[in-house]
């Protein structure tokens, strides 16, 4: 029995226990301080399990203290039932209308601008645009200088406005929905937005709940209501909510309802609620199971009546609607460094210009007055005065600022926008990838974070959860050990039981929805009834399985009108599997209310009173139910993890049974099965009475209810007689072994962090090919810090020995493992408690790096995050965490890239993740294919954008050297503005989205190619500097060929400016074309289209008579010299790059290059084989 299985098993059975499981969540949000939760609710007792390090003990007392605190009056909200006027007297509670839109028409402009200017780049350009408005510095015309910034702001503003408009529209629809509200003792339709706190609302089946309400009464006589919380947390199963007995009997229309609810202030913890209610002078305490939340739907309940306690933006769902987490990509971080280089370069250029200008002014200081092209003195009217000259020092200063304005595009503003567009495009393709679509859950890949696409190409460590991530978390009952006898024969559904077990009700057949393979011998025993001793044990065992749970049976229609299906809804898949199994053996749970359950035992319908239910909590790791039998006897059935169960079993009874059961448990868990132990005890009347009174006291307690309940449970759950154990298979997901193999070939280290126990974890490790028989296992199970230190030291020595052997044969790190003994580190959570956050971390890290596999079992959620942090802190390598449950949230948020599996276990992992997908195996196409592409594309794009803008700036700079350093530009100001908007922006975006260096097939065939990203082959300092040197050469060629060709000729500035414009644009576009690896029609259109667009733009600019360059392009294009210059520039500029590229490709080929060639020349011969190899990872299922 293991902690994780138990955790999922009982997960969130009712909100009471679920909050313990989710407590890490609530604590986290508390810590983040956004909406502080004043009261940590009862469930937080479980927080001990989620702490790591040595602070476990503190947190226990801490949470106890918290839970025992009364709600202070100042912290409480008072709701007068059915008296909204008095409730809202002080206008402190918000109405129920919601506004998710950020802006109104009035506030749009200022707020949107304010938000946009949070980016440093925008501020830079704003400062430059403002500088340009000063008359002394006006380099560009007013309009021109603002254009690029205005363009960017406008595009973003339009996008924001559209999104906001859509939000407003959906708000309007939402606010105008109708609900029945009690007005003047009658239920009337009222718009949602007019609902006020304190009003009584009636909800009918399948309606959405308009605000958070405390349940009063429901159509069910016992006061149960079922709600679906899919809008809230994505879990599609039904949750039960209870109305209080005291309010149940009241009919809102007739009985005057009044009372006071005192509840906590609005907070975002959807699993916690604490309040008390005064009705008819009685004080009742309310918990999370008494409240239904906005956004949920009422199911299987004809109606429910409740009182609104939180409305509008104070509802839990609204408080929880926050955006995706924001992370910054590694590439972008590196890029910022290069941006600093570029800034320094920019400052250097400006300094050169201003120093030269200073020297020139100094040398000509005597001539300046009369110099025809300077004319410092103004002689025109009233005497001599300096014209537009503010002294030597200021002139230099102005020159410097002006040169910043002229060379501003050195810092590529367009890069930031291009990167965003490219990421959106890449995300589009990732989402649309049919190979990452999960058929079984009907879910596509999701990109939740848009700014770390390229990080997917550089992952070095993958931290994976086990349950639900490597395995399907679709539990299947496999075998049982009952009273010491192992029944594990059910390997196939034989013919005669094809339809499985069914019962007839009113002439209709009632059958469980899912069939379970049964063991014929056991089936026979179960049918024989309890005449024999064996039969009676089997009877008790299955009765326990059918009764001891919180599953809700739902009867649904099937295609055949005579057949009804019974669907078991519950929050834990293990429980579902057990109830389905019990049904197959003839113990079919048919009805459950809060007071009784109906079980059909071998065709005979029996009613049991549920006298008490102790729900699961992560400390006890078990649950129990107290059943009142029809013959008035009372029994307690307990089910739980082996460790926790054996401690409460009566050891002196049936020693043999206990021993054999333990042996069976061991063999089950080594098969990779999840095990549960079932026990029972007869209760005498006195025992029952004693328990009953204690239970009553505990469950109505206002303070420390959870701990009191726990105490009551522990008192009754002892001296049990063991009935047996069950083995549930947690199936591996499709393609997991192949995926893990691929990832490891790709040089990615896969670490598995699981809450399961060691044997289960190791067996799953073997079946998923994570562990192989060749590996040496290093196991660390220590119970104290000292023994931890010792075992770590031993392990390090051992791994050193192993790696020194491997070092002689292998110098490339972990990529080639053939022929040596790799080590696998297996460590458990208890040891990690002593290691994490202590000085032993370092040696653990060393050890873990030497091992090719790391398996951590029995780790708590925060320990998972601790392990990720351990790696993240010590290396520059990228980490990825993948998981599906709430217990993976902290790990997902800690890792550089967080991936959520949208599977069975709810959606918290998905909500916290950057990417979400349906299956673990999609990690392979995600990383190896899309990650590789995205990284390569983005890396190239960033370099190209640096180059593109620098070439242009340098051409401007060279010209400045020939204009007395006066910052004239031959290229028209319009062209220099349009350069990065129209002339050259589109191709780089298209290439950044569409170019592929290798096909999907090759990338999957050679996972080693992923190393290109890990080694940062596409973007690094060396490439940056090579690119910059190339830039220098290209700009020099583009500038000096026309300069020399037109020296001492009649050329005018506009004409040669047009030549430079066209030369640079064609040059940078051809440079890009040279590096394009896949030419499809879009690439062609973008590149050639841009060149044509540039010609058109230049022609248009030169057709405007009010500009200086009127008609220049036509005059210069008439001459042959122009075209010859263009040709010479392009060829001469690109030759060095081409030569270097060719030399590199031919004589120092990268792996990517070789595989590209293979792709081109050997496609036909090998494609067949690859198909087979990949099929399991890709589409076709393996089994």
């Amino acid at each position: 029995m293991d902690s994780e299985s138990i955790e999922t098993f009982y997960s969130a059975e009712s909100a009471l226990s679920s909050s313990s499981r989710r407590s890490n969540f609530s604590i986290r949000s508390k810590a983040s301080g956004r909406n502080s939760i004043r009261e940590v609710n009862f469930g937080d007792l479980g927080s001990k399990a989620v702490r790591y390090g040595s602070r476990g003990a503190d947190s226990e007392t801490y949470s106890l203290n918290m839970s025992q605190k009364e709600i202070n009056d100042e912290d409480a909200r008072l709701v007068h039932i059915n008296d909204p006027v008095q409730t809202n007297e002080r206008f402190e509670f918000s109405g129920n209308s919601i506004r998710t839109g950020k802006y109104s028409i009035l506030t749009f402009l200022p707020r949107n601008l304010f938000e946009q200017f949070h980016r440093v780049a925008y501020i830079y350009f704003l400062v430059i645009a403002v500088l340009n408005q000063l008359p002394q510095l006006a380099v560009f015309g007013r309009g021109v200088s603002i254009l690029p910034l205005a363009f960017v702001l406008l595009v973003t503003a339009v996008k924001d406005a559209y999104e906001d408009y859509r939000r407003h529209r959906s708000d309007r629809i939402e606010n105008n929905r109708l609900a029945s509200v009690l007005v003047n003792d009658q239920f009337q339709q009222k718009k949602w937005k007019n609902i006020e706190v304190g009003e009584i609302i009636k909800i009918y089946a399948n309606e959405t709940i308009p605000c958070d309400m405390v349940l009063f009464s429901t159509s069910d006589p016992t006061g149960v209501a079922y709600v679906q919380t899919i809008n809230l947390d994505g879990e599609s199963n039904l949750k039960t909510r209870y109305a209080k007995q005291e309010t149940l009997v009241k009919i809102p229309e007739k009985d005057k309802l009044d009372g006071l609810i005192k509840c906590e202030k609005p907070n975002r913890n959807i699993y916690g609620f604490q309040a008390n209610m005064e009705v008819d002078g009685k004080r009742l305490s309310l918990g999370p199971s008494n409240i239904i939340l906005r956004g949920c739907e009422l199911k299987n309940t004809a109606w429910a009546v409740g009182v609104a306690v939180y409305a509008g933006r104070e509802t839990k769902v609204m408080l929880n609607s926050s955006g995706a987490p924001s992370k910054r990509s590694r590439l972008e971080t590196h890029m910022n460094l290069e941006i600093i280089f570029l800034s320094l370069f920019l400052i250097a250029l400006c300094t050169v210009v201003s120093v030269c200008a200073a020297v020139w002014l100094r040398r000509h200081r005597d001539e300046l007055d009369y110099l025809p092209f300077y004319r410092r003195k103004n002689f025109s009217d009233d005497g001599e005065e300096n014209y537009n000259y503010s002294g030597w020092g200021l002139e230099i200063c102005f020159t410097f600022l002006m040169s910043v304005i002229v060379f501003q595009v050195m810092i590529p503003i367009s890069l930031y926008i291009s990167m965003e567009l490219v990421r959106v495009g890449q995300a589009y393709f990732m989402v649309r990838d049919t190979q990452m679509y999960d058929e079984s859950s009907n879910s596509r890949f999701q990109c939740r974070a848009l700014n770390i696409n390229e990080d997917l190409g550089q992952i070095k460590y993958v931290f994976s959860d086990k349950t639900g991530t490597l395995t399907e978390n679709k539990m299947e009952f496999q075998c049982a050990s009952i009273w010491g006898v192992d029944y594990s024969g059910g390997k196939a559904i034989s013919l005669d039981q094809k339809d499985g077990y069914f019962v007839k009700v009113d002439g209709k057949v009632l059958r469980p929805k899912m069939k379970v393979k049964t063991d014929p011998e056991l089936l026979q025993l179960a049918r024989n009834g309890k005449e024999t001793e064996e039969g009676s044990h089997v009877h008790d065992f299955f009765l326990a399985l059918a009764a001891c749970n919180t599953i809700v049976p739902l009867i649904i229609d099937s295609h055949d009108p005579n057949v009804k299906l019974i669907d078991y809804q519950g929050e834990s898949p293990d429980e579902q599997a057990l109830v389905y199994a019990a049904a197959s053996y003839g113990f079919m749970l048919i009805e459950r209310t809060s007071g009784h359950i109906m079980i059909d035992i071998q065709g005979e319908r029996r009613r049991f009173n549920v006298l008490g239910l102790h729900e699961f909590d992560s400390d006890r790791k078990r649950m129990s139910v107290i059943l009142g039998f029809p013959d008035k006897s009372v029994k307690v059935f307990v089910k739980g993890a082996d460790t926790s169960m054996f401690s409460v079993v009566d050891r002196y009874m049936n020693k043999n049974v206990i021993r054999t059961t333990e042996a069976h448990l061991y063999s089950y868990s080594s098969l990779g099965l999840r095990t549960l132990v079932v026990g029972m005890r007869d209760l005498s009347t006195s025992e029952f009475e004693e328990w009953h009174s204690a239970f009553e006291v505990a469950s109505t307690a206002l303070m420390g209810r959870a701990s009191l309940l726990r105490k009551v449970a522990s008192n009754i759950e002892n001296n049990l007689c063991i009935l047996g154990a069950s083995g549930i298979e947690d199936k591996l997901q499709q393609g997991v072994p192949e995926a893990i193999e691929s990832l490891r070939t790709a040089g990615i280290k896969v670490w598995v962090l699981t809450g399961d126990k060691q044997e289960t974890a190791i067996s799953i490790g073997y079946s998923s090919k994570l562990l192989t028989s060749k590996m040496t296992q290093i196991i660390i199970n220590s119970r104290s810090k000292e023994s931890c230190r010792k075992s770590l030291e031993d392990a390090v020595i051992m791994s050193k020995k192993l790696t020194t052997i491997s070092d002689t044969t292998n110098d490339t790190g972990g990529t080639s493992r053939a022929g040596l003994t790799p080590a696998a580190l297996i460590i458990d959570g208890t040891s990690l408690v002593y290691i994490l956050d202590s000085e032993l971390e370092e040696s653990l890290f060393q050890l873990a790096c030497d091992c090719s596999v790391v398996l951590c079992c029995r780790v708590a959620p925060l320990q998972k995050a601790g392990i990720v942090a351990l790696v993240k802190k010590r290396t520059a390598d990228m980490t990825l965490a993948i998981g599906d449950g709430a217990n993976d949230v902290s790990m997902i948020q800690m890792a550089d890239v967080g991936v959520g599996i949208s599977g069975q276990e709810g959606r918290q992992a998905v909500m916290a993740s950057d990417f979400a997908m349906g299956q673990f195996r999609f990690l392979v196409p995600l990383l190896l294919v899309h990650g590789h592409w995205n990284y390569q594309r983005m890396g190239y794009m960033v370099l190209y954008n640096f180059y593109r803008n620098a070439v242009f700036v340098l051409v401007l700079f060279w010209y400045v050297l020939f204009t007395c350093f006066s910052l004239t530009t031959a290229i028209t100001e319009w062209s220099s503005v349009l350069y990065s908007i129209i002339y050259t922006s589109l191709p780089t975006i298209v290439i950044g989205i569409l170019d592929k260096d290798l096909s999907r097939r090759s990338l999957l065939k050679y996972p080693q190619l992923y190393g290109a990203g890990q080694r940062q082959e596409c973007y690094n300092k060396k490439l940056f500097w090579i690119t910059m040197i190339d830039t220098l050469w290209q700009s020099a060629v583009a500038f000096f060929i026309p300069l020399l060709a037109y020296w001492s000729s009649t050329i005018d500035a506009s004409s040669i400016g047009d030549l430079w414009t066209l030369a640079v644009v064609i040059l940078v576009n051809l440079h890009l074309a040279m590096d394009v690896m896949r030419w499809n029609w879009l690439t062609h259109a973008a590149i050639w289209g841009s060149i044509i667009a540039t010609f058109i733009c230049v022609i248009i600019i030169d057709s405007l008579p009010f500009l200086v360059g009127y008609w220049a392009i036509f005059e210069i294009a008439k001459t042959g010299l122009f075209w010859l210059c263009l040709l010479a520039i392009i060829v001469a500029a690109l030759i060095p790059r081409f030569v270097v590229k060719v030399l590199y490709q031919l004589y120092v080929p990268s792996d990517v290059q070789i595989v590209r060639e293979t792709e081109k020349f050997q496609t036909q011969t090998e494609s067949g084989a690859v198909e087979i190899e990949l099929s399991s990872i890709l589409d076709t299922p393996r089994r």
Partner: protein
Amino acid sequence: MSSNTPSSSAGGVGSADSAAPRRNSKRPKYSKFTQQELPACKPILTPRWVISAFMLVSIVFIPIGVVSLFASRDVVEIIDRYETECVPENLRNNKVSFIQSDANKTCTRKLRVKKLMKQPIYVYYQLDNFYQNHRRYVKSRSDSQLKDNSSWNDVSSCKPEDMSNGQAIVPCGLIAWSLFNDTYNFSLNNQQLEVNKRGISWKSDRDSKFGNDVFPRNFQNGTLIGGKTLDPTVPLSKQEDLIVWMRTAALPTFRKLYGKIERDLQANETIHVTLENNYNTYSFNGKKKLVLSTTSWLGGKNDFLGIAYLTVGGLCFFLALSFTVVYLLKPRRLGDPSYLSWNRNPGGH
């Protein structure tokens, strides 16, 4: 929740293609575009490709270079630098004061035609060290005023030559003010050589930039005379010297067209030039040259482009050769998987 999800054991039946289109299926629609499988050309730089590319460049560039060089050599050019010689020797110590004085600035020069010059022969003046591209200079003009008579008052951008005696100047600005005012008279064998000064500017400028109803006004009336004065009765669109001058040069050494001589000049003929050396380039050590030049399809005499083409062509030829040699000596089989890094150093041996 009530969907008929097949149990996992039955999942193997439906493969991707045969799966019946389920309602509400979110399966992305397959298209070559969304799967990034658009038909595409994947060029690879094979040695053959590379060598042929270099050969092609050299085959194209070398002939162009040769032709350009020949074209440049065919151009006959007479250049006469006169800014020093045209100052009387005794005044050469202080040329600036000479040029600012009222002294007679007429000067005669003799030019010998070395080779036959076919008509039309272009007459240029060439200025050195004159920064017509200086920021202060190029901004000092008013295009609206030049174009349109009604906006003659629009002189705001023309400082410091915007107003004179309280009146707006047409054409205003430093550029117009500094209009070049040396004049040349050519005679051959004591016979006047006609210099055609019409059509020396761009037609587009005459038609659209300089208005035919805009007349010079208040021009060169200030204390400081910058250059040539304009006939106030001739509209700007006919003032071709001004139009040429106003197309500011890109580089500090530039030529401006003065006129065309529309007859052939024989070799060894001597042309007498009578020039008025009025323009003040002495204040900034500018050179003044008179240039007579024929023209080719490539423009004036400039060997640079031909040499550049020959160099690039030659370099490419050399590269093609060396790549061939290297390729023959040390070939690499393209796409050979044994070169892959993880195949090159196998783990255990």
